[in-house]
């Protein structure tokens, strides 16, 4: 096998490839959710490996909230072009018409309408019966209990108390008309595994992960990168240039940057090993209420 993958990364890679192929073999119409972040990049790379020399037999779907960093959109389009993969971009036009935004509507409503509802619209529109997501169990407590093949009702809801037991590597892929399964091929990877794999396999990631001088606003102790003019400045506020980067990617007004000088993969891995805060700490939507992520997931968020 390639370069210098450790035994344990080799195992994780083989397990993920097995899962991805299982979906392609057993579902009528699968799709891969592509969120442009590092986890999606790894998942997509694994899909390319799973079917080589064929191309992955499913399209990518990006649910665009219209508030992603411009660099993300550029990276997304380049990636699809480079790999020659069909990319579907879905925007909740109804939400756009209603003027939903993280600024005017707050993070809760924005996420509900532009991500959760938008995703449901896209899945219903194309009749997808399986959707890959790049979530990992080490990210968040409710994710630790989710299956690799996670059943969704026809309304896209998740019932954590009624999950199918998942034994060995034998996945139950049966669904009725309208029902679907969310599949998480990198469930067993940790953040460190992801970065070490990105490095070993030389996988392109969005430049925002690497430190650079960027204009930021400091609000309530969080550094916000003002990606365009839509984010209004408060009276007396001016963006300041700071050396920093993001640890996870989301909608730019909802993604806190960290002050960091990590400009290479080596630096990022070293910084992460020394870090005393968890990965999703910069994600404002996780903490807006108690049991926050579990609630969102029950409603159909990824």
């Amino acid at each position, binding site marked *: *096998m390639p370069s210098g993958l450790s035994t344990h990364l080799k195992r994780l890679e083989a397990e993920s490839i097995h899962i991805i192929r299982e979906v392609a073999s057993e579902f009528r119409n699968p799709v891969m959710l592509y969120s442009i972040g590092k986890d999606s990049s790894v998942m997509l790379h694994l899909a390319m*490996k799973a*079917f*080589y*020399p*064929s191309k992955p037999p499913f399209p990518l779907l990006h649910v665009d909230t219209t508030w992603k960093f411009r660099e993300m959109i550029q990276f997304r389009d380049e990636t699809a072009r480079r790999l020659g993969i069909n990319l579907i971009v879905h925007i909740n036009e109804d939400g756009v018409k209603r003027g939903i935004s993280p600024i005017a509507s707050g993070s809760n409503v924005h996420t509900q309408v532009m991500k959760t509802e938008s995703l449901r619209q896209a899945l219903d529109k194309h009749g997808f019966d399986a959707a890959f997501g790049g979530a990992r169990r080490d990210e968040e407590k409710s994710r630790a209990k989710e299956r690799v093949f996670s059943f969704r009702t026809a309304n896209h809801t998740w019932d954590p108390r009624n999950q199918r037991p998942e034994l060995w590597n034998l996945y139950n892929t*049966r669904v009725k008309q309208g029902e679907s399964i969310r599949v998480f091929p990198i469930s067993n990877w940790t953040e460190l595994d992801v970065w070490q794999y990105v490095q070993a396999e030389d996988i392109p990631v969005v430049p925002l992960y690497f430190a650079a001088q960027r204009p930021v606003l400091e609000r309530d102790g969080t550094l916000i990168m003002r990606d365009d003019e839509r984010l209004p400045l408060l009276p007396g506020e001016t963006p300041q240039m700071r050396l920093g980067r993001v640890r996870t990617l989301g909608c730019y007004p909802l993604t806190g940057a960290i002050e960091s000088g990590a400009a290479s993969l080596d630096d990022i891995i070293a910084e992460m090993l020394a*870090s*005393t805060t968890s990965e999703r700490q910069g994600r404002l939507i996780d903490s807006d209420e108690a049991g926050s992520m579990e609630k969102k997931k029950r409603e159909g968020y990824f």
Partner: protein
Amino acid sequence: MAQPLAASLASTAAIAEAASEKSLLRFITCGSVDDGKSTLIGRLLYDTKLIFDDQLAALEKDSRKYGTTGPAIDLALLVDGLEAEREQGITIDVAYRYFATAKRTFIVADTPGHEQYTRNMATGASTAGLAVILVDARKGVLTQTKRHSFICSLLGIKNIVVAINKIDLVDYSHVVFAEIEEAYRDFAEQLDFDSITPIPMSALTGANVTTPSEDLPWYSGPTLLEHLEEVDVDTDLRLKPFRFPVQWVNRPNLNFRGFSGTLASGEVRPGDPVVVSSSGKSSRVASIVTMDGELDVAEAGDSVTITLEDEVDIARGDVLAPPTARPEVANQFSAKLIWMEEERLFPGRSYLLKLATRTVPATVTGLKHKIDVNTLDELAAKTLALNEIAEVNIETGAAIAFDPYSDNRETGAFILIDRETNATAAAGMVLHGLRRATNIHRHATSVDRAARARIKRQKAAVLWFTGLSGSGKSTIADLVEQKLAVRGQHTMLLDGDNIRHGLNKDLGFTDADRVENIRRVGEVAKLFVDAGTLVICCFISPFEAERALVRELVGEGEFVEVFVDTPLETCIARDPKGLYRRALAGEIPNFTGVSSPYERPDNAELVLATADADPDALAERVVAEMISRGLIEA
């Protein structure tokens, strides 16, 4: 809090080097309620510095709200993820946790101890190489300890750690420790473990979890973490015969045809001879393809794409193996089964069986005995309920390749799927193949079903009348047969009277017997269809699964389901045989509609609402339906 462990490593190069030698250990923790499993895992995460400042802050907040440890941080809250559990103070499902030391990375399955969640424990155990079984030092070896150990052994775990927890609450007593060790070893003699390692500890105080404790001077063994870092659990799948279940046929263009899959066991090299399990056709491996280039060798656990030297017909579900060490190929085998859904198992009912990459229809043909998980006693059984374990015989719709589970966990494990609800109904482990059926080859006859039916100027089929007792099934069916007789058609009527008084007189009216009753009726009807006959069947047949079974047995297009739809109140009012009166008085148990369910058909070919229709007109509708289906001539 202290810096993460790995941060002390001087350079990333050193980290990368350490990482490349790192192996992976998957283990499961199990124990009774309040034995402290979640606390133990919380302790491992905490002591290996995998808890970050923001998580710690959230934990402190949660400890004040939900904690059970007073002013101290409740480590269990780290692990008990779901909101509902936090409020109840219990773990309800399997949760997976990840941590690493310089030597190993670990995936921990945390599974609950309550009786009703046996299935979750089996789930966690299915991928684990080692089990940590918690025993409360104050309580010793409990019934649940035995149950969990038995399930671990059933799922093929060979290495056991007996974590004798809360040792601080028995004053770090060596005597207590020794007594528990002895009791456990006595019990475990009948289970098939390779190693049993008892370790005294306190998850709450941290004693002997990751650091030795001064309070345990009599103990000289490793701490739990030391043991987990060192223990060798590799059953070495590489040394077993090569097995390659084909997952996906890889055909990007006309010039490439490969077979993608994960090596279940063994090794393979270009040039190796292989056979295809289903057909016995043979070839040689031409190349092992990956995106990183072709490989000289692939081993157990690798996901690759294999090309062969010859054009051989291969599909998903086939298994490639060496000609000298082939898997068994059969359509009958014995197995251990763990029942995992609320709906009971009924022998004779049709399920889907998934083994490696193959999915086929299957039925449990015999329930040899169930196993009491507390005493390991073998008990007679007619059905299985949730969390029950049994030894069974299974028949599959097509021959499949497998190995005994004790030889190969990858090609000896299967699941059963409920065809109605799609629930995962059972987990199974193959014991051995049954040769009986493989030696009875079906004899292809020269005069077949179609030929026999042609002589009778008809197409053979089953007309299946289903409905409540007193719904009018027999009345309508009798009229239909009269009309067909007048038309010169060859018919046979099967109903409760001519079947239950003869062929099925050994059966009663329990759910299990009802399933067997319909299975036999289906087989008889099929023989009549083979004889070219139009078979009219009148059975309450309350369960969708059995109607589906007969439909499948007879074949699509030759099965016409007629649902005689009469409201229960009307049937009770008619009560032609006085049965409802007696059932409602409690004199007849398991009476459909009263004390036993009737599942309305969703996909009947014909629904006859009898409310205000004339039976003769309804019979005419059945005949018209047969004509429109081309079964008889107009």
